[in-house]
């Protein structure tokens, strides 16, 4: 079947959306935009293709009488198992890479001890992975780096302490190896992995094997790919396949909510305010200037500083009862500001609430610069996943622009890629 693909090469994450000729979204994929953009584009596309298969399975299962009422469960099961297989594969890769990196004067005479610590650490990580992918488990992140990394810190520190080795040594091996692993797109045919996932599923494989295999057999053709986003110039695409991220975000938001007139997108290092007309055409836009203050990365720094996952910041800030006033949203000094406040005896959640407000205040300024907020208003980008940011935004929009319908899609991070895919489809279909 024909697939139209949009790839949004962001500063922190790369997103891909696959669309069919009816402009229906088939699949979405996301990955870290680390180091190698080609890889990032490839991985996100692969992820979107995996998601596309799941959609096809869903369509296939719709006709299977035995699956009625269980489709969600079956698919969730399938996906979890698939992810775990993938995770374990990468973990294995990471372990082998890390062990391979034990060399040089730093490790002299300690090679065996270090190796033991690594092996023990990875053994425990493998054990923990079952829980990580158990039904209903809440994962800190969708990325291998974050998932493996968080546990590695905990487990690794304990294991090396017990072995009497400095943790810095082990941490360094991890840092060295993760980047290599990340830059290797997951190997192996995904069909095979799906089949294995199917086998380890809780559903009786017999009833669904045939439709799943049928869906797997549908050929997916990359009909047209459009690239956008911060890193788009680095994409190996011809110029006519590249669109400005402003246009893609505008169109993407229009596709999600056709009533959209104003779009706010907060990404990793930029914040955009966009006005679109009823057809999704951009009328006006503003971005932050050279300074990356108050963008998504800011939250990343804060999360690092607090030793928390990005997903956890919002909920903690929501627990605040007394917001602290924060004036500077300089990303670099975010940590310093945080420590300053902690030293003054302020509570973590109150400071966090203040930080979220500061980010949104900046976004409000950019919106104001772009010509204000009109009905309907759509909030996109990674930060739209953050409930504390959303809460502040709702408050401030109401105070400044009255009752405006605010749209936030759970898949808002894919808005740019969605716009790109739509452009791709239009390029061929029109």
């Amino acid at each position, binding site marked *: 079947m024909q697939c139209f693909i949009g790839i949004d090469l962001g*500063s922190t994450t790369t997103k891909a959306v696959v669309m069919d000729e009816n402009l229906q979204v088939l699949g979405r994929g996301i990955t870290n*935009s*680390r*180091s*190698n*953009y*080609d890889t990032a584009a490839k991985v996100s596309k692969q992820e979107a293709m995996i998601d596309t298969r799941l959609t096809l399975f869903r369509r296939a299962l719709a006709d299977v009488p035995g699956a009625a009422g269980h489709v969600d469960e079956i698919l969730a099961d399938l996906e979890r198992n698939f992810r775990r297989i993938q995770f374990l594969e990468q973990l294995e890769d990471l372990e082998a890479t890390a062990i391979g990196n034990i060399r040089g004067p*730093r490790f002299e005479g300690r090679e065996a001890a270090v190796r033991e610590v690594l092996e023990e650490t990875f053994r425990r990580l493998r054990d923990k992975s079952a829980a990580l992918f158990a039904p209903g488990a809440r994962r800190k992140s969708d990325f291998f780096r974050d998932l493996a990394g968080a546990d590695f810190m905990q487990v690794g520190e304990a294991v090396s302490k017990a072995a009497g080795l400095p943790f*810095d*040594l082990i941490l*360094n091996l991890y*840092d*060295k*190896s*993760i*980047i290599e692993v990340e830059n290797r797109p997951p190997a192996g045919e995904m069909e095979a992995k799906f089949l294995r996932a199917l086998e380890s599923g809780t559903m009786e494989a017999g009833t669904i094997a045939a439709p799943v295999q049928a869906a797997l057999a549908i050929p997916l053709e990359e009909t047209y790919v459009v690239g956008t986003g*911060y*890193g788009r110039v*680095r994409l190996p695409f011809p110029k006519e396949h590249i669109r400005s991220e402003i246009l893609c975000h505008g169109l993407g938001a229009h596709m999600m909510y056709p009533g959209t007139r104003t779009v706010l997108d907060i990404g990793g*290092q930029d914040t955009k305010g966009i006005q679109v007309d009823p057809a999704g055409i951009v009328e006006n836009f503003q971005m932050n200037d*050279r*300074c*990356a203050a108050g*963008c998504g*990365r800011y939250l990343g720094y804060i999360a690092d*500083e*607090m*030793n928390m996952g990005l997903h956890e910041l919002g909920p903690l800030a929501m627990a605040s009862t007394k917001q602290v006033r924060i004036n500077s949203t*300089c*990303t*670099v*000094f975010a*940590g*310093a500001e945080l*420590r300053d406040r*902690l*030293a003054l005896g302020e509570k973590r959640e109150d400071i966090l609430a203040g930080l979220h407000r500061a980010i949104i205040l900046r976004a409000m300024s950019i919106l104001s610069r772009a010509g204000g907020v009109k009905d309907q208003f759509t909030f996109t980008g990674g930060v739209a996943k953050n409930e504390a940011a959303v809460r502040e935004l709702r408050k401030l929009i109401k105070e400044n622009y009255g009752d405006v319908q605010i749209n936030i899609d759970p898949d808002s991070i894919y808005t740019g890629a969605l716009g790109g895919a739509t452009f791709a489809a239009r390029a061929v279909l029109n």
Partner: protein
Amino acid sequence: MTAIITAGIDIGSGCIKTVLFRVDGETVEWLDKDVARIRNRDPFLLTDETYDAMLARQGLCREDVAYVASTGDAEALRFATGHFYSMTTHGRGAVYLNDRARSVLDIGALNGRAIRIDDSGKVLGYRMTSQCASGSGQFLENIARYLGIAQDEIGQLSKSADAPEKVSSICAVLAETDVINMVSRGISAANILKGIHVSMATRLAKLLKAIGATEGVVQMTGGLALDEGLVAALNEALAAENMALTAQSHADAIHAGAIGAALWGAFRHQKLALLDEMAA
């Protein structure tokens, strides 16, 4: 005059440095030192811990210390006798570490300072890096971790660079993206690190020029003084600018602030004792 014990405590944004001295007139004896990484802990609790551990090591108790001098972010340290500001203490510490030092570059986790001093450590002029800088220790640390390089490897690697790649952004966030771009273009870690060192060095040379340091020895203090790549890059930048300055480091450079505080503490203690005597 009897010998006294003084302590210097330097609370930074990255680490807490503690030193202990015995001062007897002109004779100064360095008893003990410690660096504790803060890593998300309460700096004041950590200070209590490390300070008490140090006293215990030396068989001392808090009452034995005549003057506890704090510096850095430690104005609120409860058990300090007095507080001196960082540039005052780094100037003094630099002279203690190297009596030929006539200017000081203190580069810590977040801020950089250039200080011009005389032979007694008296501050003659100074400059701080402005708020918005990608040249902080923290930034370097983040990049190194991203590249998978341990802190003590940075220096050697940077020195092995053959074609340093310049980092142009002034903003650390954007600079980080620059670096990611470089990796994707296949630039080696050595060249990236050196590039960062070069841009830091340019900025530091500018600071030195701004304080009017024109010749002699620049003593590097603070955590980044331990980064030999930066020291090398700085010396190259100074040469390129035709500045007759030589940057030198010291194995105890990270302690300079704490040392300076302990020594000024002793000075102040004696002065106060003198005043008391006169009053009596």
